[in-house]
């Protein structure tokens, strides 16, 4: 299940849930559902009797990861396992022991706002890690525009203003916060370019809605124009929320964008990798959630001109929203997003 509990399905129930999950995504986003061959392939993946499964040889993809080594030394809030390792040691472990294709340096709070005043320390970590490791190294952080609102930040909180009907004030506050966010992302990115990073990962983008996405896209434009960094934009969820509601990018309204529309905006901004996120429904089965995620991701990979790395961590990509992940579903979700969704990476 989407909440991690184990259930038993008959083959007919499995196929019903796969089709239903795909059709739900197709109806909502006005995209094609998975065809019969895709659904049968998904059924094969779920009916595999082994506890874990894997892609066919030759179908392997590139892994990028938000936070990376943070999940080794961090605590419960980041699904961390509390191992006493430094970030540099963690990166080496992920590279050499776990066989990851890329790695990241990231602040423990993993947002641009707290990383900004510590940029010099973050640059030192990047420089040292680049001397030691071989795989490409990103700097990763979340735009996380919610941190710019009171009580955590300087701007009025739209969540306080909107219930009072102060719509224009809420919109103004979002635009002020978005401008500050854009400048902070750019400041950190340029610092990381100076430190020799290979790329920058904007993770969980648009978590605070359309104004956050606008700030992120504008930052991407400027990063691409002024540095040699590769830019990955990973999203927060499948639908961009319209907390502002009136913002556009390239003539397209940002609020209400589905993953294939988000991809077009991210490509137009000049990013190098797009990470669609599809949130798991905890009340549905995992086959239903995986089929739904594959439908959204396939709508991206059909048209993408840049690599698509599907988000497949806790609570997204069909992976259950639960602290300790069932390995059978995690491996099946990843394999499905690659072999049915057509993802270039996870």
């Amino acid at each position, binding site marked *: 299940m989407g909440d991690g509990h184990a259930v038993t399905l008959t083959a007919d129930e499995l196929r019903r849930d796969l089709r239903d999950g795909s059709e739900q995504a197709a109806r909502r986003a006005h995209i094609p559902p998975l065809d019969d061959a895709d659904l049968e392939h998904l059924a094969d993946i779920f009916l595999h009797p082994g506890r*874990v*499964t*894997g*892609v066919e*040889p*030759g179908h*392997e*993809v*590139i*892994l*990028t*990861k938000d936070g990376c080594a943070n*999940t080794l030394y961090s605590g419960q809030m980041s*699904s961390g396992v509390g191992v006493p390792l430094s970030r540099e040691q963690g990166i080496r472990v*992920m*590279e*050499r022991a*776990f*066989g*990851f*294709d*890329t790695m990241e340096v990231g602040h423990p709070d993993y947002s641009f706002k707290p990383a900004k005043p510590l940029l010099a320390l973050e640059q030192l970590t990047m*420089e040292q890690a*680049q*001397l*030691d*490791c*071989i*795989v*490409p*190294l990103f700097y990763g952080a979340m735009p996380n525009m919610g941190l710019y609102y009171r009580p955590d930040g300087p701007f009025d909180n739209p969540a306080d203003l909107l219930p009072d009907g102060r719509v224009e004030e809420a919109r103004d506050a979002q635009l002020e916060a978005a401008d500050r966010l854009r400048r902070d992302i750019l400041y950190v990115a340029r610092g990381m*370019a100076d430190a*020799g*990073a*290979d*790329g920058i990962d904007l993770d969980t983008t648009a978590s605070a809605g359309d104004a956050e996405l606008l700030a992120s896209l504008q930052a991407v434009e400027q990063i691409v124009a002024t540095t*040699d*960094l*590769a830019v990955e934009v990973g999203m927060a969820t499948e639908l961009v929320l319209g907390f502002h509601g009136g913002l556009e990018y390239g003539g397209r309204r940002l609020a209400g964008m589905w993953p294939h529309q988000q991809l077009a905006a991210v490509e137009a901004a000049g990013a*190098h*990798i797009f990470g669609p996120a599809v949130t798991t429904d905890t009340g549905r089965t995992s086959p239903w959630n995986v089929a739904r995620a594959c439908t959204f991701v396939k709508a991206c990979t059909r048209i*993408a*001109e*840049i*690599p*698509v790395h599907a988000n*497949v*961590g*806790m609570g997204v990509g069909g*992976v259950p929203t639960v602290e300790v*992940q069932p*390995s059978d579903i*995690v*491996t099946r979700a*990843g*394999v499905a997003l*690659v072999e049915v969704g057509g993802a*270039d*990476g*996870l």
Partner: protein
Amino acid sequence: MSLCHALASGMGGIRTAGDLVARMQLRKMRQPQARRYVADKLGVGVIDLTDSTLMRELRAELDIGVVTGVPGAAKGIAAKMNIAELLDVPVGCVEKLRTRTRRT
């Protein structure tokens, strides 16, 4: 969870050619194109890129870093200097090193 994905779906990083293909994705190549590019540069087939036995030997021969601890083998940024030349792509930290050591 990370380890699940690495084993089930990942290319294998420096165990195989995952880091090399990743570098081409950073240049906007999608996976089939990136795999083909790296395979051509290495002179192997696309299917060989995730053959850990073959890639272990080839990586040692090309001195682009191996996953085991081998004295004398290129490590870290030294391996990346060789990778930049092999793939014919600039690597940011390598360019910084060249600038700081006044090497071209």
